[in-house]
């Protein structure tokens, strides 16, 4: 048992720690409930945090986990850039991935919190905007070969200076963005959310004063560090290596890209070494260091068993090695927009495969990767430009020891934080007619615990000339979700466009498409990987899945070795026993 140290009151420490976390949730509520971008309002693709005056993370709520370790880099960059020129009433913005941001669409907006004339904390937000300029759709440009085709780059800059609205800065930004009517209010939304955070932090300062708060947060960092260290110590020493692949980078469609992770555990030290990954590539799957670091943290925090406050203490207790010039830490001016959803996922998968060699029962089988388009066009019905990402299309979660995967969860870098938009509101805003939105039978990897179900999502386009950027991967066997410990892989995704004239186009990962009136876009998003040998799954559980139409009679027989009478829906116990015996040998 580790003891709370120092002269601090452990109770007060807990109380203040909770309060800081509650503040990050208050900031989040304001963003969630008032933003225009479906990406942060509906899909919750944002993070909120409080930092101390030394730019250390005090508390955070990452509504999707891939953002968990990225804000500290952005805050440090802004703070360094303005150093002695930070004032009460300032609000700062940043999106440039080569100045500390994770990727360009996730705009960072932060506000310094002053107390009695001195900077004490930062109230911070980061959210995925629906447009950041460039040649992409919602930021995604699978043909980009440099950042200049992806976005307007915002170096650390001020949206407000001493409380004054910086008109020139806003105009410079919004004049370069097609969907300014959505981005402008969402920038205001982030500024408003920062103010909500400021309100909470100032109340704490009024109550406890800065000196006491700083004593407490040091203790919070130490506590978290102790927790992480004790989790690391529980992992057997050794070096564990695994690799996973990306389908391609959008530009060179014949080459899969290797992501390699070696996890070295020595006593209480852990290092994620990604040095053996491929060199950086032409297309937009190049990762930035903040994103790579986040992915490593996601893999680790989803594989340990306690709930730990995520703060500076966690950040400093894990080493990450990702040399510059590799796909996991690309140099300027590489394109990087797809690094969160594509490359981040592959890093988590490789790290899980590596960890599964050390702590097999704690790791999950792979979740379905993301693969769906973002689209933009003109909606004749509303008379407006529309843009959206089709977040209904969610694959299954991976199974783990003792538990089936969750159905319709979406990609692992969100780990269940991605909320599917409402289909009715979607039809009311976009010129789309939904044809199907339900589970895809037989999409999950078989196992003693099976993967979660994937999703069929089909819609008809009811407007001419809609542009689509299909982003993400997982459309081939090598990139489909893996099973663990004898559990089976899930099938690859299947995506296609059925043109109004009946022609069928197979849809690839990371590629632009043009859609016309009457086209039907069809997505079969895979389920999660299975865990443990399928023959060890109790036949009643297999029967239940068959009765529910999630697993077919054939798959029950072939993958699970369970024979079910198609008339009576009873398990044929004897045939099952024989079949399982036969298939085992």
């Amino acid at each position, binding site marked *: 048992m580790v003891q709370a140290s120092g002269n601090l009151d452990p109770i007060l420490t807990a109380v203040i720690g909770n309060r800081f976390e509650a503040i990050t949730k208050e900031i989040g509520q304001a963003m969630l409930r008032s933003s225009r971008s479906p990406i942060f309002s509906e899909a919750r693709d944002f993070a909120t945090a409080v930092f101390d005056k030394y730019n250390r993370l005090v508390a955070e709520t990452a509504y999707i986990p891939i953002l968990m370790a990225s804000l500290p880099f952005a805050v440090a960059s802004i703070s360094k850039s303005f150093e002695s020129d930070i004032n009460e009433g300032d609000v700062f913005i940043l999106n440039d991935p080569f100045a500390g941001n994770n990727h360009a669409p996730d705009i960072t907006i932060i506000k310094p919190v002053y107390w009695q004339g001195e900077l004490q904390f930062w109230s911070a937000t980061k959210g995925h905007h629906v447009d950041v300029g460039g040649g992409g759709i919602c930021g995604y440009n699978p043909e980009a070969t440099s950042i200049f085709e992806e976005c307007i780059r915002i170096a650390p800059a001020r949206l407000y200076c001493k409380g004054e609205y910086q008109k020139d800065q806003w105009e410079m930004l919004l004049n370069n963005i097609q969907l300014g009517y959505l981005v402008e209010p969402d920038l205001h939304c982030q500024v408003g959310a920062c103010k909500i955070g400021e309100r909470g932090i100032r109340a704490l300062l009024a109550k406890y004063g800065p000196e006491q708060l700083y004593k407490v947060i040091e203790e919070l960092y130490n506590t978290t560090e102790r927790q992480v260290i004790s989790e690391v110590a529980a992992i057997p020493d050794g070096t564990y290596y695994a690799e996973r692949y990306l389908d391609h980078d959008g530009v060179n469609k014949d080459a899969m890209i290797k992501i390699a992770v070696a996890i070295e555990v020595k006593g209480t030290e852990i290092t994620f070494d990604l040095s053996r990954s491929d060199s950086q590539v032409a297309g937009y799957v190049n990762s930035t260091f903040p994103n790579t670091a986040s992915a490593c943290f996601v893999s680790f925090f989803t594989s340990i068993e306690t709930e730990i406050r995520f703060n500076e203490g966690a950040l400093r207790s894990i080493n990450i090695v990702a040399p510059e010039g590799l796909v996991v830490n690309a140099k300027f001016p590489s394109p990087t927009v797809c690094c969160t959803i594509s490359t981040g996922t592959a890093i988590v998968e490789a790290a899980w495969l590596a960890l599964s060699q050390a702590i097999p029962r704690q790791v999950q089988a792979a979740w379905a990767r993301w693969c769906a388009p973002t689209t933009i066009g003109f909606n004749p019905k509303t008379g407006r430009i529309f843009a959206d990402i089709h977040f209904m299309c969610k694959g299954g979660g991976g199974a783990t020891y003792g538990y089936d995967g969750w*159905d319709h969860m979406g990609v692992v870098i*969100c780990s269940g934080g991605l909320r599917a938009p*409402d289909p009715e509101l979607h039809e009311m805003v976009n010129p789309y007619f939904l044809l199907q939105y339900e589970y895809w039978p037989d999409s999950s990897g078989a196992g003693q615990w099976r993967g*979660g179900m994937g999703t069929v999502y089909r819609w008809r386009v009811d407007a001419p000339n809609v542009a689509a950027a299909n982003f993400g991967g997982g459309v081939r066997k090598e990139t489909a979700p893996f099973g663990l410990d004898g559990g089976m892989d899930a099938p690859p995704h299947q995506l296609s466009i059925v043109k109004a004239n009946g022609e069928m186009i197979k849809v690839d990962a990371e590629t632009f498409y043009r859609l016309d009136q009457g086209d039907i876009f069809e997505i079969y998003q895979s389920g999660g990987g299975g865990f443990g040998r399928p023959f060890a799954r109790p036949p009643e559980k297999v029967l239940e899945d068959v009765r529910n139409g999630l697993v077919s009679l054939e798959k029950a027989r072939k993958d699970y070795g369970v024979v079910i009478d198609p008339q009576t829906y009873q398990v044929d116990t004897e045939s099952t026993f024989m079949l399982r015996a036969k298939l085992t040998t």
Partner: protein
Amino acid sequence: MFRIGIDVGGTFTDFLLIENGGDNRVYKVITTPENPARGVLYGMKMMAQELGMSTGEFLQNVSTIVHGTTITTNATLTQEGAKTGFITTKGFRDCLNMRRGLREKKYNPKQSPPLPLVPRYLTMVVEERIDCDGQEVIPLHEQGVYEAIDLFKKEQVESVAVSLLFSFFNASHEERIGEILRTNMPDVYITLSSEVLPQVRVYERNSTTALNAYVGPLLDRYLKELHTSLTREGFKGTLLIMQSNGGTMSLELASKFAVNTLLSGPASGPTAGLFYAEPHNNGNIITIDMGGTSFDVCLIKDHAAAVTMEGQIGNYSIATPMIDIHTIGAGGGSIAWIDSGGMLRVGPKSAGALPGPICYGLGGVDPTVTDATLILGYLDPEFFHGGKLKLKAELAHQGIEKLGEKLGLDKVSTADGILKIVLMNMADGVMEVSVKRGYDPREFALVVAGGAGPIHATAIAKVLDIPLIIVPRESSVFCAAGMLLSDLKHDYVRTYNAPLGEHDLAKIKELYQQMQYEALLTLKSEGIPQERVSIFISADLRYIGQFNDVEVPWKGFNLGDTVYLLADAFHHRHESLYGYSMPGSSVEFINLRLTALGVTDKHTLSKYPYSSGDPSPALKGVRAAYFEGKFLETPVYNGLKLQYGNLVTGPGIVEQINTTIIVSPGYRLYCDEYNNYIIQSESFKG
């Protein structure tokens, strides 16, 4: 004549009996979970006996019973609802069970997915489609409905829910399916989404509809049984059921809209709170109700409790309006533990009633909040439950001591720490409903109820700087009291989507009139004449492009003139909630809402004569209790003997059966002219 409020809770069934011109009486009997009607009848017999009447004679003199029940809540939480079939639009079979694909605990892989309310094999799809303008695109293929009926009959389904895409714009397909079902399955409970919740958002509507179907048959059976038994014994009055929205409804409506009873138990708390606070305050209160496992908190602003359309029960969403009662896992039974980083934590796990806290001596080994309060001298081991359960103090001391060793703290500091943490959790719960929504808790009075609430009242008030605390003398049957004070209340909604300025005023008026007509008809069927009906209308608005809306009340019925005032009100509310507003931006309607009240007769608080400031006639002893780092000799008073004007200066303890009030130093308690307790900080001037 008598009026009775009945709150059937998990452990006890509470009764408040009010006699015209007479006193209020409080009763408690053990709940009979297998058939709660039995406990209710037993209570009736007990009351009759105490009044010296036969049960029949007594019941003939009961004019009104208002009843809150947890039968639907428990059925949902324990997944023991009716076997339910679900019919939806072809292609959208799993929208109900997908739950929008959220997993709240993102980092924990060791969780089972929630069990669906309706298994997939009982979810049937029919070919049909209405589009987003309410136009029929694919006609209803009735064959599919008959196929569903065949399966449902074979599977002996007791209840069927129907929820189709865009049925809130055009209910014709749902209504036709309803007809076919009623004709072919006359004994089955039928729920249509267009009747329960004609409102946009598929999952939330499906879930509300399915929940109604899931709990409907149970509630229907229970209410029929209860009504029959009461009538057989001589009852001829009105039986009303408490709803989640804080109002009541008739038996018939409750049976049909069972989903509206999922919060029937605690929903009358705010009304009770307002009633007791009325003489002292302007209608801004926060009610807290702390029992064994949970802490319920609700904010009431300008006499109106906050209402949410995003309620949850278990893992299921409910989009019909519910009083926004925030519940956290903090109660007397909450367990204290140490996490892997060496930090002390409390709850949300509770020792419940069995084995309960260590000091119950019933086999509990985990130290709890109740054990900590005992060590600090707040509870009298001999007078717990009015002396019916003798507490084992020495066991509590051992348990807390052991926990303290791991922290390097002595047992008293540990017990004090446990209370401080649970206190902070509760304070955070209060902040959740206040600060988070833009309200300053210091502008509210705190009304405290429940078995464990009054112990922590002054401590919570101190943390939040709340100047005024009210503890009703009937705080242990708080919700039963609230039921007798509630009006009949019905909520209606219509989805209407158009930008302000481009809206069709005639259409808006028509929709409000439809709702008003329905409301008047319903209240008439419940015996409410039109002059007793109050109507309130509001609109859900948002900036064009937003995905969530803000409900803004629409004062007055002159719709044409007030549309722009409505927009102003929206900008203001937005600013206070989210830290910004954009008065230049376009605003759009998303839903229109109407609430109708059928105002009922209510009792008033009885006044008592002034006695004096001196509380000493009620003094029953002195014991050591822990305040601010040391034990102080603290006087203990018998609450039932305290009279109007008596003033207890902290430190002090006031005890009644099932209620202990701790008055911390720096606070003073006095008994007001209605025999309720008012506690104020000594620095408070008011």
